[in-house]
Protein backbone atom coordinates (compact mmCIF):
# COMPACT_ATOMS: atom_id res chain seq x y z
CA UNK A 1 0.00 0.00 0.00
CA UNK A 2 2.84 2.38 0.76
CA UNK A 3 4.18 1.95 -2.72
CA UNK A 4 0.72 2.47 -4.20
CA UNK A 5 0.21 5.65 -2.21
CA UNK A 6 3.64 6.84 -3.17
CA UNK A 7 2.94 6.23 -6.81
CA UNK A 8 -0.25 8.21 -6.66
CA UNK A 9 1.55 11.00 -4.92
CA UNK A 10 4.04 11.12 -7.78
CA UNK A 11 1.26 12.06 -10.16
CA UNK A 12 2.63 12.88 -13.57
CA UNK A 13 6.18 13.45 -12.42
CA UNK A 14 8.27 11.49 -14.90
CA UNK A 15 11.82 10.79 -13.86
CA UNK A 16 14.27 13.32 -15.33
CA UNK A 17 16.22 10.36 -16.68
CA UNK A 18 13.18 9.05 -18.57
CA UNK A 19 13.02 10.64 -22.02
CA UNK A 20 10.36 8.38 -23.42
CA UNK A 21 7.27 9.96 -24.96
CA UNK A 22 4.14 9.37 -22.89
CA UNK A 23 2.15 7.56 -25.56
CA UNK A 24 0.20 4.39 -26.01
CA UNK A 25 2.91 3.11 -28.35
CA UNK A 26 5.48 3.09 -25.56
CA UNK A 27 3.05 1.68 -22.99
CA UNK A 28 2.09 -1.14 -25.35
CA UNK A 29 5.51 -1.92 -26.77
CA UNK A 30 7.59 -1.80 -23.61
CA UNK A 31 5.17 -2.71 -20.83
CA UNK A 32 1.92 -4.37 -21.84
CA UNK A 33 3.12 -6.68 -24.62
CA UNK A 34 6.25 -8.11 -22.96
CA UNK A 35 4.93 -8.19 -19.40
CA UNK A 36 1.21 -8.91 -19.75
CA UNK A 37 0.73 -10.29 -23.26
CA UNK A 38 2.94 -13.34 -22.89
CA UNK A 39 1.42 -16.32 -24.61
CA UNK A 40 0.34 -18.24 -21.51
CA UNK A 41 -1.40 -15.22 -19.93
CA UNK A 42 -3.14 -12.30 -21.64
CA UNK A 43 -2.38 -13.31 -25.22
CA UNK A 44 -4.62 -13.65 -28.23
CA UNK A 45 -4.67 -17.39 -27.79
CA UNK A 46 -5.10 -17.72 -24.02
CA UNK A 47 -7.17 -14.58 -23.32
CA UNK A 48 -6.84 -15.06 -19.58
CA UNK A 49 -9.74 -13.32 -17.83
CA UNK A 50 -10.69 -11.86 -21.19
CA UNK A 51 -7.73 -9.51 -21.42
CA UNK A 52 -5.39 -9.51 -24.43
CA UNK A 53 -2.28 -7.38 -24.59
CA UNK A 54 -0.11 -8.92 -27.29
CA UNK A 55 -1.14 -6.57 -30.11
CA UNK A 56 -1.93 -2.89 -30.34
CA UNK A 57 -5.54 -3.44 -31.42
CA UNK A 58 -6.29 -6.05 -28.76
CA UNK A 59 -4.70 -3.91 -26.06
CA UNK A 60 -6.86 -0.98 -27.01
CA UNK A 61 -9.93 -3.13 -26.51
CA UNK A 62 -8.72 -4.65 -23.25
CA UNK A 63 -7.75 -1.33 -21.74
CA UNK A 64 -11.25 0.11 -21.97
CA UNK A 65 -12.25 -1.17 -18.54
CA UNK A 66 -8.87 -0.47 -16.98
CA UNK A 67 -8.47 3.20 -17.77
CA UNK A 68 -11.59 4.36 -15.96
CA UNK A 69 -10.94 5.52 -12.39
CA UNK A 70 -13.03 3.99 -9.62
CA UNK A 71 -14.86 5.97 -6.96
CA UNK A 72 -11.54 6.59 -5.20
CA UNK A 73 -9.94 7.89 -8.36
CA UNK A 74 -7.78 4.80 -8.76
CA UNK A 75 -7.29 3.43 -12.27
CA UNK A 76 -7.76 -0.31 -12.60
CA UNK A 77 -4.54 -0.69 -14.55
CA UNK A 78 -2.53 0.95 -11.78
CA UNK A 79 -4.36 -0.98 -9.09
CA UNK A 80 -3.48 -4.43 -10.46
CA UNK A 81 0.15 -3.44 -10.94
CA UNK A 82 0.68 -2.03 -7.46
CA UNK A 83 -1.43 -4.10 -5.08
CA UNK A 84 0.44 -6.14 -2.51
CA UNK A 85 -1.04 -9.54 -3.30
CA UNK A 86 -1.12 -11.18 -6.76
CA UNK A 87 0.49 -8.11 -8.25
CA UNK A 88 0.70 -8.04 -12.03
CA UNK A 89 2.80 -9.07 -13.83
CA UNK A 90 3.18 -12.15 -11.72
CA UNK A 91 6.52 -13.39 -13.01
CA UNK A 92 8.77 -10.34 -12.83
CA UNK A 93 8.76 -6.96 -11.11
CA UNK A 94 7.72 -3.95 -13.14
CA UNK A 95 10.12 -0.99 -13.06
CA UNK A 96 9.00 1.93 -10.94
CA UNK A 97 9.56 4.26 -13.89
CA UNK A 98 7.18 2.17 -16.00
CA UNK A 99 4.49 2.54 -13.33
CA UNK A 100 5.02 6.28 -13.25
CA UNK A 101 4.81 6.39 -17.03
CA UNK A 102 1.51 4.50 -16.99
CA UNK A 103 0.00 6.77 -14.39
CA UNK A 104 1.16 9.85 -16.23
CA UNK A 105 -0.37 8.48 -19.42
CA UNK A 106 -3.66 7.86 -17.63
CA UNK A 107 -3.65 11.31 -16.05
CA UNK A 108 -3.06 12.79 -19.51
CA UNK A 109 -6.19 11.01 -20.77
CA UNK A 110 -4.37 8.17 -22.55
CA UNK A 111 -2.79 9.87 -25.58
CA UNK A 112 -2.56 7.64 -28.63
CA UNK A 113 -5.15 5.16 -27.44
Amino acid at each position, binding site marked *: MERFAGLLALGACISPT*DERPITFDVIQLEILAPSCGVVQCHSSTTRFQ*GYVFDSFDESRRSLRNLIVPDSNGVFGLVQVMTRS*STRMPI*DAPLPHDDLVLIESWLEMDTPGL
Partner: protein
Amino acid sequence: MKAFVVLLLACRIAHAYPQYQLARDATCTGCHLAPDGGGLLNENGLVVAESTAWKDGDGSFMFGMRKPAWLSLGGDLRGATGAAFIGEVEPVAFPMQAEVAANASSHGFTLHAVGGLRSPQDQGSPLHVLWSREHYVMWQSGSVYLRAGRFEPTYGLRLAEHVDYTQRYGGRPLFGEVYGVAASYVAPSFEIHATGYVHDSLTGASVEHGDGAAAYGEVRVGDHAAIGVEGKISTTSEITKSYGGITAKLYLQRVDVMLQGEIEVIRDHVHLDAGDRVTQFIGYVLASKELGAGLLLDVGAGHFTEDTRAMGLDRDCLDANLHWFVTPHLEGSVTTRLELIDRGSGGRGGYALLQAHYRL
Protein backbone atom coordinates in the same frame (compact mmCIF):
# COMPACT_ATOMS: atom_id res chain seq x y z
CA MET B 1 -3.56 -15.85 4.86
CA LYS B 2 -1.83 -15.63 1.58
CA ALA B 3 -3.67 -16.98 -1.40
CA PHE B 4 -2.34 -20.15 -2.92
CA VAL B 5 -1.96 -19.19 -6.51
CA VAL B 6 -2.47 -21.97 -9.00
CA LEU B 7 -1.46 -20.65 -12.35
CA LEU B 8 -2.95 -22.50 -15.26
CA LEU B 9 0.00 -21.73 -17.44
CA ALA B 10 0.44 -25.00 -19.20
CA CYS B 11 3.20 -25.94 -21.56
CA ARG B 12 6.22 -23.99 -20.49
CA ILE B 13 8.44 -26.18 -22.51
CA ALA B 14 12.14 -26.49 -22.17
CA HIS B 15 14.36 -27.13 -25.10
CA ALA B 16 17.71 -28.73 -24.50
CA TYR B 17 20.79 -28.68 -22.38
CA PRO B 18 23.45 -26.94 -24.44
CA GLN B 19 25.57 -27.12 -21.29
CA TYR B 20 26.73 -30.45 -22.67
CA GLN B 21 27.75 -29.09 -26.05
CA LEU B 22 31.52 -28.86 -26.50
CA ALA B 23 32.01 -30.78 -23.26
CA ARG B 24 30.65 -33.93 -24.88
CA ASP B 25 29.69 -33.31 -28.51
CA ALA B 26 30.48 -30.49 -30.86
CA THR B 27 26.95 -30.02 -32.16
CA CYS B 28 23.36 -30.29 -30.96
CA THR B 29 22.87 -33.09 -33.47
CA GLY B 30 25.28 -35.13 -31.38
CA CYS B 31 22.36 -35.80 -29.03
CA HIS B 32 19.20 -34.58 -30.78
CA LEU B 33 17.37 -35.45 -33.97
CA ALA B 34 16.55 -31.84 -34.82
CA PRO B 35 19.36 -29.89 -36.52
CA ASP B 36 19.22 -27.15 -33.88
CA GLY B 37 18.72 -29.40 -30.87
CA GLY B 38 15.88 -29.81 -28.43
CA GLY B 39 13.20 -32.45 -28.25
CA LEU B 40 13.71 -36.05 -29.27
CA LEU B 41 17.07 -37.64 -28.51
CA ASN B 42 19.04 -39.78 -30.91
CA GLU B 43 20.86 -42.94 -29.91
CA ASN B 44 23.87 -41.05 -28.60
CA GLY B 45 21.60 -38.67 -26.69
CA LEU B 46 19.99 -41.62 -24.94
CA VAL B 47 23.42 -42.94 -24.00
CA VAL B 48 24.33 -39.51 -22.59
CA ALA B 49 21.09 -39.44 -20.61
CA GLU B 50 21.88 -42.85 -19.19
CA SER B 51 25.48 -42.03 -18.33
CA THR B 52 24.57 -38.68 -16.78
CA ALA B 53 21.85 -39.96 -14.48
CA TRP B 54 22.42 -40.83 -10.85
CA LYS B 55 20.64 -44.20 -11.19
CA ASP B 56 21.26 -46.52 -14.11
CA GLY B 57 18.47 -47.53 -16.39
CA ASP B 58 17.18 -47.86 -19.90
CA GLY B 59 16.80 -44.33 -21.23
CA SER B 60 14.87 -45.23 -24.35
CA PHE B 61 11.18 -44.50 -24.89
CA MET B 62 9.04 -46.27 -22.30
CA PHE B 63 12.09 -48.26 -21.16
CA GLY B 64 12.63 -49.89 -24.54
CA MET B 65 9.09 -50.37 -25.82
CA ARG B 66 9.25 -52.24 -29.12
CA LYS B 67 8.71 -50.08 -32.18
CA PRO B 68 9.88 -49.96 -35.77
CA ALA B 69 13.41 -48.69 -36.33
CA TRP B 70 12.12 -45.83 -38.53
CA LEU B 71 9.99 -44.46 -35.70
CA SER B 72 11.26 -42.35 -32.81
CA LEU B 73 8.91 -41.54 -29.98
CA GLY B 74 9.18 -39.39 -26.90
CA GLY B 75 7.33 -37.12 -24.58
CA ASP B 76 7.73 -34.76 -21.67
CA LEU B 77 5.76 -34.10 -18.50
CA ARG B 78 6.86 -31.15 -16.47
CA GLY B 79 5.54 -29.11 -13.56
CA ALA B 80 6.74 -26.73 -10.89
CA THR B 81 5.85 -25.40 -7.49
CA GLY B 82 7.47 -22.99 -5.10
CA ALA B 83 7.30 -19.35 -4.13
CA ALA B 84 7.51 -16.11 -6.03
CA PHE B 85 8.24 -12.65 -4.71
CA ILE B 86 6.90 -9.71 -6.65
CA GLY B 87 4.73 -7.80 -4.19
CA GLU B 88 4.62 -10.33 -1.37
CA VAL B 89 5.99 -13.83 -1.14
CA GLU B 90 3.30 -16.07 -2.57
CA PRO B 91 3.10 -19.80 -3.18
CA VAL B 92 2.85 -20.77 -6.81
CA ALA B 93 2.22 -24.02 -8.65
CA PHE B 94 1.75 -24.65 -12.31
CA PRO B 95 1.89 -27.34 -14.97
CA MET B 96 4.57 -26.68 -17.55
CA GLN B 97 4.49 -29.30 -20.23
CA ALA B 98 2.52 -32.34 -21.30
CA GLU B 99 3.54 -33.34 -24.79
CA VAL B 100 4.33 -36.34 -26.93
CA ALA B 101 6.63 -36.31 -29.94
CA ALA B 102 7.10 -38.56 -32.93
CA ASN B 103 9.60 -38.78 -35.78
CA ALA B 104 9.04 -41.07 -38.75
CA SER B 105 12.09 -41.29 -40.99
CA SER B 106 12.77 -43.02 -44.27
CA HIS B 107 15.24 -42.41 -47.11
CA GLY B 108 16.39 -39.09 -45.68
CA PHE B 109 12.89 -37.74 -45.13
CA THR B 110 11.40 -37.19 -41.69
CA LEU B 111 7.89 -36.38 -40.59
CA HIS B 112 8.00 -34.76 -37.18
CA ALA B 113 5.20 -33.75 -34.83
CA VAL B 114 4.88 -32.62 -31.23
CA GLY B 115 1.42 -32.51 -29.71
CA GLY B 116 -0.03 -32.07 -26.29
CA LEU B 117 -1.74 -29.67 -23.95
CA ARG B 118 -1.58 -25.91 -23.68
CA SER B 119 -3.24 -23.26 -21.56
CA PRO B 120 -7.03 -23.23 -21.84
CA GLN B 121 -8.62 -20.25 -23.51
CA ASP B 122 -10.81 -18.17 -21.29
CA GLN B 123 -14.41 -18.85 -22.35
CA GLY B 124 -13.07 -20.82 -25.31
CA SER B 125 -13.71 -24.34 -26.50
CA PRO B 126 -12.43 -27.14 -24.25
CA LEU B 127 -10.68 -28.50 -27.34
CA HIS B 128 -8.47 -25.44 -27.34
CA VAL B 129 -6.13 -27.15 -24.89
CA LEU B 130 -5.15 -29.68 -27.57
CA TRP B 131 -2.58 -28.50 -30.04
CA SER B 132 0.51 -29.30 -32.00
CA ARG B 133 3.41 -27.02 -31.20
CA GLU B 134 5.66 -28.46 -33.87
CA HIS B 135 4.97 -30.31 -37.09
CA TYR B 136 7.25 -30.33 -40.06
CA VAL B 137 8.77 -32.39 -42.80
CA MET B 138 12.54 -32.55 -42.98
CA TRP B 139 14.99 -33.81 -45.54
CA GLN B 140 18.54 -34.61 -44.51
CA SER B 141 21.57 -35.53 -46.53
CA GLY B 142 24.80 -35.62 -44.59
CA SER B 143 25.26 -32.23 -42.96
CA VAL B 144 22.41 -30.57 -44.86
CA TYR B 145 18.94 -30.25 -43.36
CA LEU B 146 15.89 -28.72 -45.02
CA ARG B 147 12.70 -28.21 -43.04
CA ALA B 148 9.22 -26.95 -43.84
CA GLY B 149 6.38 -26.65 -41.37
CA ARG B 150 5.81 -25.31 -37.88
CA PHE B 151 8.91 -24.91 -35.74
CA GLU B 152 10.91 -22.24 -33.98
CA PRO B 153 13.44 -20.39 -36.15
CA THR B 154 16.98 -21.22 -35.10
CA TYR B 155 18.41 -18.22 -33.32
CA GLY B 156 20.86 -17.70 -30.48
CA LEU B 157 21.85 -20.02 -27.67
CA ARG B 158 18.57 -21.96 -27.27
CA LEU B 159 19.04 -22.39 -23.53
CA ALA B 160 16.82 -24.78 -21.63
CA GLU B 161 15.31 -22.20 -19.27
CA HIS B 162 12.87 -20.00 -21.13
CA VAL B 163 13.12 -17.31 -18.46
CA ASP B 164 16.77 -16.63 -19.29
CA TYR B 165 16.81 -13.01 -20.40
CA THR B 166 17.86 -13.70 -23.98
CA GLN B 167 14.90 -16.07 -24.23
CA ARG B 168 12.44 -14.00 -22.21
CA TYR B 169 13.10 -10.68 -23.95
CA GLY B 170 15.14 -11.67 -27.00
CA GLY B 171 14.61 -13.14 -30.41
CA ARG B 172 13.78 -16.70 -29.42
CA PRO B 173 10.94 -16.51 -26.94
CA LEU B 174 8.91 -19.36 -25.52
CA PHE B 175 6.19 -20.41 -27.98
CA GLY B 176 7.83 -18.55 -30.81
CA GLU B 177 7.04 -21.30 -33.31
CA VAL B 178 6.03 -20.14 -36.77
CA TYR B 179 5.36 -21.63 -40.18
CA GLY B 180 8.51 -21.52 -42.19
CA VAL B 181 11.13 -23.11 -44.34
CA ALA B 182 14.64 -23.53 -43.06
CA ALA B 183 17.99 -24.70 -44.31
CA SER B 184 20.73 -25.84 -41.97
CA TYR B 185 24.26 -27.02 -42.45
CA VAL B 186 25.66 -28.66 -39.34
CA ALA B 187 29.26 -29.84 -39.25
CA PRO B 188 31.67 -30.38 -36.38
CA SER B 189 33.60 -27.22 -37.24
CA PHE B 190 30.70 -24.87 -37.95
CA GLU B 191 26.97 -24.65 -38.46
CA ILE B 192 24.63 -22.21 -40.17
CA HIS B 193 20.86 -21.96 -40.07
CA ALA B 194 18.56 -19.77 -42.13
CA THR B 195 14.78 -19.55 -41.79
CA GLY B 196 12.09 -17.66 -43.63
CA TYR B 197 8.73 -17.60 -41.90
CA VAL B 198 5.22 -16.32 -41.60
CA HIS B 199 3.31 -16.07 -38.37
CA ASP B 200 0.77 -18.71 -37.40
CA SER B 201 -2.46 -17.15 -38.60
CA LEU B 202 -4.21 -20.53 -38.47
CA THR B 203 -4.27 -20.89 -34.68
CA GLY B 204 -2.69 -17.65 -33.49
CA ALA B 205 -0.91 -19.78 -30.91
CA SER B 206 2.46 -18.13 -31.15
CA VAL B 207 4.11 -15.26 -29.43
CA GLU B 208 5.55 -14.33 -32.81
CA HIS B 209 3.03 -12.19 -34.69
CA GLY B 210 5.30 -11.07 -37.48
CA ASP B 211 6.62 -12.41 -40.74
CA GLY B 212 10.32 -12.38 -41.41
CA ALA B 213 13.57 -14.24 -41.39
CA ALA B 214 16.17 -15.48 -38.92
CA ALA B 215 19.74 -16.65 -39.27
CA TYR B 216 22.32 -18.08 -36.95
CA GLY B 217 25.88 -19.16 -37.58
CA GLU B 218 28.37 -20.68 -35.17
CA VAL B 219 32.03 -21.50 -35.65
CA ARG B 220 33.98 -23.79 -33.38
CA VAL B 221 37.32 -22.42 -32.25
CA GLY B 222 39.43 -25.40 -31.34
CA ASP B 223 37.82 -28.30 -29.54
CA HIS B 224 36.15 -26.43 -26.69
CA ALA B 225 35.10 -22.96 -27.84
CA ALA B 226 32.65 -21.49 -30.27
CA ILE B 227 31.45 -18.08 -31.35
CA GLY B 228 28.20 -17.29 -33.13
CA VAL B 229 26.39 -14.52 -34.94
CA GLU B 230 22.62 -14.10 -35.00
CA GLY B 231 20.12 -11.93 -36.81
CA LYS B 232 16.36 -11.79 -37.13
CA ILE B 233 13.71 -9.48 -38.50
CA SER B 234 10.00 -9.63 -37.81
CA THR B 235 7.44 -7.26 -39.21
CA THR B 236 3.72 -6.70 -38.79
CA SER B 237 1.49 -3.84 -39.86
CA GLU B 238 2.11 -2.35 -36.42
CA ILE B 239 5.81 -2.86 -35.79
CA THR B 240 9.09 -4.05 -37.22
CA LYS B 241 11.53 -5.67 -34.83
CA SER B 242 15.16 -6.17 -35.81
CA TYR B 243 17.44 -8.36 -33.74
CA GLY B 244 21.16 -8.89 -33.86
CA GLY B 245 23.73 -10.37 -31.56
CA ILE B 246 26.64 -12.61 -30.84
CA THR B 247 27.07 -15.77 -28.81
CA ALA B 248 30.09 -17.40 -27.25
CA LYS B 249 30.70 -20.81 -25.70
CA LEU B 250 33.78 -21.95 -23.84
CA TYR B 251 34.36 -25.24 -22.10
CA LEU B 252 37.02 -24.98 -19.42
CA GLN B 253 38.31 -28.51 -19.44
CA ARG B 254 40.56 -28.26 -16.38
CA VAL B 255 37.72 -27.26 -14.08
CA ASP B 256 34.97 -28.92 -16.13
CA VAL B 257 32.93 -25.74 -16.41
CA MET B 258 30.92 -24.71 -19.45
CA LEU B 259 30.48 -21.00 -20.09
CA GLN B 260 27.89 -19.61 -22.48
CA GLY B 261 27.04 -16.02 -23.24
CA GLU B 262 24.86 -14.01 -25.56
CA ILE B 263 24.51 -10.30 -26.27
CA GLU B 264 21.61 -8.98 -28.29
CA VAL B 265 20.51 -5.61 -29.61
CA ILE B 266 16.88 -5.10 -30.55
CA ARG B 267 15.59 -2.21 -32.60
CA ASP B 268 11.83 -1.66 -32.64
CA HIS B 269 10.16 0.58 -35.20
CA VAL B 270 6.48 1.25 -34.55
CA HIS B 271 4.55 2.00 -37.74
CA LEU B 272 1.62 3.61 -35.97
CA ASP B 273 1.07 7.16 -34.76
CA ALA B 274 4.37 9.02 -34.39
CA GLY B 275 6.45 6.02 -35.43
CA ASP B 276 8.31 5.48 -32.19
CA ARG B 277 11.74 3.83 -32.32
CA VAL B 278 13.14 1.90 -29.37
CA THR B 279 16.54 0.35 -28.80
CA GLN B 280 16.99 -2.48 -26.29
CA PHE B 281 20.02 -4.43 -25.06
CA ILE B 282 20.08 -7.91 -23.57
CA GLY B 283 22.91 -9.94 -22.16
CA TYR B 284 23.04 -13.30 -20.44
CA VAL B 285 25.90 -15.49 -19.25
CA LEU B 286 25.60 -18.98 -17.84
CA ALA B 287 28.23 -21.10 -16.11
CA SER B 288 27.49 -24.80 -15.75
CA LYS B 289 29.29 -27.57 -13.90
CA GLU B 290 28.54 -31.22 -13.51
CA LEU B 291 28.92 -32.17 -9.86
CA GLY B 292 28.61 -35.92 -10.20
CA ALA B 293 25.79 -38.17 -9.00
CA GLY B 294 23.56 -36.72 -11.73
CA LEU B 295 23.84 -33.14 -10.49
CA LEU B 296 24.31 -30.16 -12.79
CA LEU B 297 24.73 -26.67 -11.34
CA ASP B 298 23.96 -23.56 -13.40
CA VAL B 299 24.75 -20.04 -12.30
CA GLY B 300 23.57 -17.28 -14.60
CA ALA B 301 23.44 -13.51 -14.74
CA GLY B 302 21.36 -11.36 -17.04
CA HIS B 303 20.92 -7.75 -18.01
CA PHE B 304 18.10 -6.10 -19.96
CA THR B 305 17.89 -2.48 -21.01
CA GLU B 306 14.23 -1.98 -21.79
CA ASP B 307 14.69 1.38 -23.50
CA THR B 308 17.89 3.32 -23.90
CA ARG B 309 15.94 6.56 -23.45
CA ALA B 310 15.19 5.82 -19.79
CA MET B 311 17.87 5.11 -17.22
CA GLY B 312 15.66 3.64 -14.50
CA LEU B 313 14.54 0.61 -16.48
CA ASP B 314 17.67 -1.52 -16.39
CA ARG B 315 16.84 -5.02 -15.23
CA ASP B 316 19.40 -7.44 -13.79
CA CYS B 317 19.04 -10.97 -12.54
CA LEU B 318 21.09 -13.60 -10.81
CA ASP B 319 19.99 -17.19 -11.40
CA ALA B 320 21.06 -20.40 -9.70
CA ASN B 321 19.65 -23.71 -10.90
CA LEU B 322 20.49 -27.17 -9.64
CA HIS B 323 19.40 -30.04 -11.87
CA TRP B 324 19.32 -33.57 -10.58
CA PHE B 325 19.05 -36.26 -13.21
CA VAL B 326 17.78 -38.98 -10.94
CA THR B 327 17.27 -41.56 -13.68
CA PRO B 328 17.58 -41.33 -17.46
CA HIS B 329 13.88 -40.40 -17.45
CA LEU B 330 13.40 -38.39 -14.27
CA GLU B 331 14.83 -34.98 -13.51
CA GLY B 332 14.27 -32.79 -10.49
CA SER B 333 15.54 -29.25 -10.27
CA VAL B 334 15.60 -26.21 -8.08
CA THR B 335 15.54 -22.92 -9.95
CA THR B 336 16.01 -19.61 -8.19
CA ARG B 337 16.20 -16.00 -9.32
CA LEU B 338 16.89 -12.66 -7.72
CA GLU B 339 15.87 -9.77 -9.94
CA LEU B 340 16.62 -6.08 -9.48
CA ILE B 341 15.30 -3.06 -11.36
CA ASP B 342 17.65 -0.10 -11.56
CA ARG B 343 20.02 -1.94 -9.20
CA GLY B 344 17.21 -2.44 -6.70
CA SER B 345 15.97 1.11 -6.38
CA GLY B 346 13.25 0.65 -9.03
CA GLY B 347 11.80 -2.64 -7.81
CA ARG B 348 12.88 -6.16 -6.99
CA GLY B 349 11.55 -9.68 -7.21
CA GLY B 350 12.46 -13.29 -7.49
CA TYR B 351 11.37 -16.86 -7.12
CA ALA B 352 12.42 -20.28 -5.93
CA LEU B 353 10.84 -23.24 -7.68
CA LEU B 354 11.00 -26.99 -7.49
CA GLN B 355 10.55 -28.58 -10.89
CA ALA B 356 9.90 -32.15 -11.85
CA HIS B 357 10.43 -33.42 -15.38
CA TYR B 358 9.63 -36.89 -16.63
CA ARG B 359 10.79 -37.86 -20.08
CA LEU B 360 8.85 -40.74 -21.54
